[in-house]
């Protein structure tokens, strides 16, 4: 082994077998589903390259300085892992799955540890030090107004069940948490808010700032414990990934919090008739499978079940496997560093929706909604982007208000 320094040596040791699993096949089945590669057509940005670089590192041919930039080009959607024949065929037997998302995340962390930082990520993460929340542009953000979205809803603090509201939803698309909170109340679910809610820490971790991410995680877990929370209702797929994948890694066995994803809960409420959808919604819609729900967590049925139960709706579905090759471009901090490519990824997603001649694209990921909405407004005729919970609340006859951007 000819790797350059200790950190890199450790990294290669940890990831080399996974890298070789890809390298020895190297067929690049993943390439044409990767949303970034579909736009840039640059082989540096392919999952294949992400693994080959590690083999080259082992050879001493490439170092973290050479490759750090390339690992920015990933939305962490997970499409490549699903498309990989290694996962499909040998995965189960050998408990071997080509891990690409984790590799990208780890490589970004190695970059930061090695003192190689990306300017926009650095700025982003630094801004969260004071704000404790995602630094959303042009919106006053601080702990005093983190729950401003809930004004007039009369939600308690604490309790066994907590609704965790994503930063994007808390400050930018407040219609989503409002709609969600109101329909949960209507269905008789008892839940409260946190005393002090910080960012889940997921984005910082994805940008490579692991220590920083952990501070957020520790704060949030402490807050949950302090208010007696046992169960968290999650309404953003990114938070869901952070809570189900990062937090257990940070806290190990101690992490005993139950996590419920909102679409699973709402589908169940509808099924059990705790929530009645009566007001017809006359729209022609298709559904955008958020990457983290569909590709990474395998949640694709409950959102469809909910859509099918809304009266008046014409639902033109595209199966969840076809959607492996779509992405909004909003994930993995990608849009912060590569806004133009991210924009093109969203544009292509909307073009696919427009082919189905729909007036609405429904998403279940609040992060995706700002970029997708912007691209939907460019189309003629326009395609509006709505959150699934907004439609549910509307059909349940709730006037939820809030802001949509």
């Amino acid at each position: 082994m000819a790797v350059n320094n200790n950190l890199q040596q450790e990294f290669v040791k940890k990831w080399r077998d996974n890298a070789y699993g890809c390298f020895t096949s190297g067929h690049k089945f993943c390439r044409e589903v990767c949303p970034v590669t579909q736009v840039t057509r640059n082989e540096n940005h392919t999952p294949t390259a992400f693994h080959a670089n590690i083999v080259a590192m082992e050879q001493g041919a490439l170092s973290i300085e050479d490759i750090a930039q390339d690992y920015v080009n990933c939305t962490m959607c997970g499409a490549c892992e699903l498309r990989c024949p290694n996962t499909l065929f040998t995965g189960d037997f050998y408990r071997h799955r080509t891990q690409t998302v984790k590799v990208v995340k780890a490589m970004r962390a190695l970059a930061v540890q090695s003192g190689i930082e990306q300017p926009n990520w650095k700025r982003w993460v630094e801004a969260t030090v004071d704000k404790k929340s995602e630094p959303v542009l042009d919106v006053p953000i601080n702990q005093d107004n983190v729950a401003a979205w809930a004004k007039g809803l009369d939600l308690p603090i604490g309790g066994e069940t907590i609704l965790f509201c994503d930063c994007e939803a808390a400050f930018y698309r407040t219609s989503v948490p409002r709609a969600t909170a109101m329909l949960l109340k209507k269905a008789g679910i008892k839940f409260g808010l946190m005393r002090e809610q910080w960012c889940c820490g997921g984005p910082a971790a994805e940008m490579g700032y692991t220590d920083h991410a952990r501070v957020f995680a520790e704060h949030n877990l402490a807050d949950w414990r302090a208010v007696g929370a046992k169960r968290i209702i999650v309404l953003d797929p990114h938070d869901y990934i952070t809570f189900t994948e990062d937090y257990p890694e940070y806290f190990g066995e101690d992490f005993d919090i139950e996590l419920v994803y909102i679409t699973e809960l709402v589908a169940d409420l509808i099924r059990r008739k705790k929530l009645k959808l009566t007001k017809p919604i006359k729209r022609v819609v298709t559904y955008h499978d958020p990457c983290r729900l569909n590709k990474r967590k395998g949640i694709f049925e409950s959102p469809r079940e909910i859509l099918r139960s809304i009266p008046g709706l014409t639902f033109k579905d595209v199966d969840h496997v076809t959607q492996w090759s779509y992405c909004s471009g909003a994930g993995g901090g990608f849009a912060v560093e590569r806004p133009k490519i991210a924009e093109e990824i969203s544009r292509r997603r909307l073009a696919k929706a427009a082919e189905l001649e729909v007036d609405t694209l429904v998403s279940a990921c609040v992060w995706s909604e700002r970029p997708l909405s912007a691209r939907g407004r460019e189309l003629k005729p326009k395609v509006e982007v709505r959150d699934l919970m907004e439609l549910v609340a509307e059909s349940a006859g709730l006037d939820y208000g809030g802001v949509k951007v």
Partner: protein
Amino acid sequence: MSVVTVSDAVIEELKGIVGPEYVLIDKPARYNRTRVPAPFPVHRWGDYVPDVVVLPATAEEVSEVVKLANRFKIPIVPRAGGTGLADGAVPLRRGILVDIKRMNKILEIDLEDRAVTVQPGINMLKLNEELKKYGVFYPDDPASYPCSIVAGRIGTSGFSLISSRYGHTRDLVMSMQVVLPTGEIVEVGDGGGRKLRKSSTGFQLKHLFMGHQGTLGICTEATLELVPRPEAEFAAFFGYRDFEAAYKSTGAMTKSGLATLAAVVLFDDKKVQYLRRDDEAYIPQPKSVNSVIATAIYGVEDEVRAAGKRLLRIAKETGGKYLGDEVSQGDWASRHDRYATPLHGRLLNGQVVPMCWHCEDSAINYSVIPKVRKEWHSIAERYIKKYEIFDDWGCFFYTNAAYKPWGDYLAEIDIGIWEQRLNEENWRAWVECKREITQVALKYGGSITACHGSTREGDAEFVPVEMKGGFEVMKRIKKALDPNNIMNPGKNMLDKAYED
């Protein structure tokens, strides 16, 4: 052969041609564009790294890049998907690598005359996603369907799994635009209109630009056949007690005259054993099954139903046992993904190690299949015993002729290689093994390759042997078109054209 390196002045000119953003000189860009599927000599990775990578967007840009390379006598190599199994896209002499993946637009869909014109950087699966809306498809269907690219299919003259029904790449590309090694842009194909299937004017130039592995120019546009999407698909897998019975049954099926028969694949006992080893995706078969035939019929409903019945009858009469709908449909549907999954390799002592896949793909006649197969396995066995890095993953035989199942066969032996253990000694052993396998194919009147090309060490040396007098013609053509030997130099023994 001296290696010319690319000067800063040339790099500046390249930036002027394709735009600075699309000239890559960073190390990872160059390292990753050397790599092809395994076995890739990791220990020699650094030897074949191009000096600069360009990502052009148009034929004009490609032409200017080629002219520049020709002026400075810089080696230039086109790269498409980088999935070729014969090292065609590996820049043996460094130089400029032209990555055409950005050229992936669909230029025209002509449903009236049934042709689609594309830039060559598009992948078949992506193209067919678009074509689906129109009820047509482009039926070039290699096992690398999700990853290989039209230009690479042309560069290698690839093999399509459903070719007995629809033809291979060379039959499906109607015409193309090529940038010659001196930079001129020309159209080749039958007739002047780009969309003719048959003419009789002049030389048949299209075939000259099929499978040349980037040694005669760079394809920048292609017009492809559009066929109706099959209304019905019937896949049937049959099990046999031994290879001999399956072999005979293959003959009966392929000579039956069924026009809709798209594929007949014969898996030998070693292949069945390999699949059985530990692959959960392979649905367990009774022990009595030692060889398998996979078939597929494509066409309109009425034809397919009738042909399916006939095929089942032929199989039964020749000792085949239908393996059931689950195996047949599932395994045929997943055929694209069944290749190249590592971690199947086993050493002599049974230990599982992450091996890579190397396939040897000769074209041979039906009559010699049993002999070739036997000799190939015995070669593999010798190397497995001597070097602890190989494994025999069995053979299969695919109908190879276009529009007719009874032609010759693509014969493939798959060898697992433990790539992590490649050093110079093991690498030489592998090349030797490959040479022996190649020679068997030639001995029985076969060809070195049916689709991957003969640009890898162990094959390349035998090009003059197989081509005989034709090799003289090849050399003259190469020298006439590429006076400075800049296009993918070092491949196919074509350097010999410049020796005298």
